[in-house]
């Protein structure tokens, strides 16, 4: 489906660049001329080799890093400071070890001064959904890495943000845990219909999860292309080993290596899911 001219995208990046000044006054270009739209309810995955500025891009989108050039708009409004419209999940769970699981999940609600009774109910629902029932009184160090990352997802969702930003959230987990968390994320996306931006360095993961895959090049991070993934939803674990997924993965790889001119950015960048 094409987005009609004049319809506001959920998020729009136009000509976003990010430079860092390093020692000896040299300047490192992390991102160069990033332009794309994200429609509401999309699950966009961003994949790129290390050094492609994936994390930088996520931080720019979250409003944590100001872009050196270019503009970022959220529902038409310029993003120039951190926005609580996003729930952020980092590569490490970043839980506060002195707080129980429940208290960690509730923390954003406390900071944003939301109704605590409602937040408590929502927290219990989220813990239930994410398979964390019975852990609310535990401390993070009593949980496995996978469970900790589930807690951090629950925390990112507690204030019901419009969008979830995820920075290689499952990168540090073992393959089995990663698969089950991938499936749960898809389920969560299906039921909540939140816009999700998911960064990964794994091409199969990007294809398996994404409605579209944004492919970045390394040093500086530029958009190599966007690949729409027309695989049916709900996606199942069998799909992971399928030829269709393999074909998409091969295409993403060739775009990343610059061998696939057919997946030019302009062709796809205004397509929604």
């Amino acid at each position, binding site marked *: 489906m094409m987005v009609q001219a004049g319809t506001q995208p959920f998020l729009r990046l136009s000509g976003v660049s990010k430079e860092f000044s390093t020692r000896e006054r040299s300047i490192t270009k992390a991102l160069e001329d990033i332009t794309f739209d994200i429609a509401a309810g999309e699950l966009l995955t961003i994949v790129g080799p290390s050094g492609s500025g994936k994390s930088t891009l996520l*931080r720019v989108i*979250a*409003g*944590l890093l100001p872009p050196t050039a270019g503009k970022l708009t959220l529902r038409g409004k310029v993003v120039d400071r*951190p*926005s*609580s419209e*996003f729930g*952020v999940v*980092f590569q*490490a769970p*970043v839980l*506060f*070890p*002195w707080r129980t699981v429940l208290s960690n999940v509730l*923390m*954003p609600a406390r*900071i*944003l001064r939301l109704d605590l009774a409602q937040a408590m109910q929502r927290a219990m629902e989220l813990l239930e959904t994410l398979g964390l029932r019975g852990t609310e009184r535990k*401390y*993070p*160090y009593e949980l496995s890495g996978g469970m900790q990352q589930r807690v951090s997802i629950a925390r990112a969702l507690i*204030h019901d943000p419009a969008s979830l930003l995820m920075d290689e959230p499952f990168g540090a987990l073992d393959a089995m845990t990663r698969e089950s968390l991938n499936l749960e994320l898809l389920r969560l996306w299906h039921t909540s219909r939140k816009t999700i931006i998911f960064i990964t360095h794994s091409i199969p993961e990007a294809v398996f999860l994404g409605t579209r895959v944004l492919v970045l090049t390394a040093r500086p991070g530029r958009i190599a292309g966007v690949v729409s993934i027309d695989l049916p939803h709900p996606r199942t674990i069998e799909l992971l080993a399928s030829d269709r997924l393999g074909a998409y993965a091969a295409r993403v790889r060739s775009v990343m290596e610059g061998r696939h001119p057919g997946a030019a950015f302009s062709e796809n960048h205004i397509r929604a899911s």
Partner: protein
Amino acid sequence: MLRHLQKLIAPTASLLALAIVWQASVVWFRLPTYLLPPPSAVIAAGAENFGFILTQLAITLGAIAIGFVAGSLLGIATAALIVFSPIARRLLYPLVIITQSIPKVTIAPILLVWFGLGMGSELALIILMSYFPVLVNTVTGLSAVEPDALDLLRTLHAGRLQVFWLLRLPNALLGIFDGLKVGITMSVIGAILAEFIGSNDGIGWLILVAKTNMDLSLSFAAIAFVSAAAIILFEMISGAQRLIVHWQKMQ
């Protein structure tokens, strides 16, 4: 509990062995008591002057309690100020680093001039001795927070005060306790030193007076008491650390 007791077996055995060797050498070499009293004489002196030693120890411990608590609170408050305000950091922290490296015992005689004999100069020295280790460890703990955790709080628009209470202070607890452990040890040293150079009571004064009277048995007994007190104080803080900073695996 049983495993705790088992851990005590080896140190008790070596301590006992040391006492036996000590006792035997004093008898064997016929050392005079005014040079090196045997453990038996030390124990006898301790038993005989039990009440008196405890009274003097209580005076010293009282000074340590007040000085240590005041020094620690001042240290934590200064650290919070340094971390909270960039101006305070630029003005105060270099000063702290410089003054920190002055051996505090060297200014003990000057404190005596300023605060007079007795409690005043003793408290001043204890406060100085505990202030710096607590301050430096607290600054480290308050500053060394995970950048991602800071970013997370920024996306929620947490103010600086919220960042302090939610992240920095709990993050600093381990460092604060490490500082307190150094601080309490320094406090005991400061108290004894202050009583050596200008006091009319306290366990340090007693050790000195007993020595002057050539009653080394009493000196040794007083040293044993103050050592035991120092160990108990340290272990109390260590225990509180394990209890409060439960998320940190302790050695």
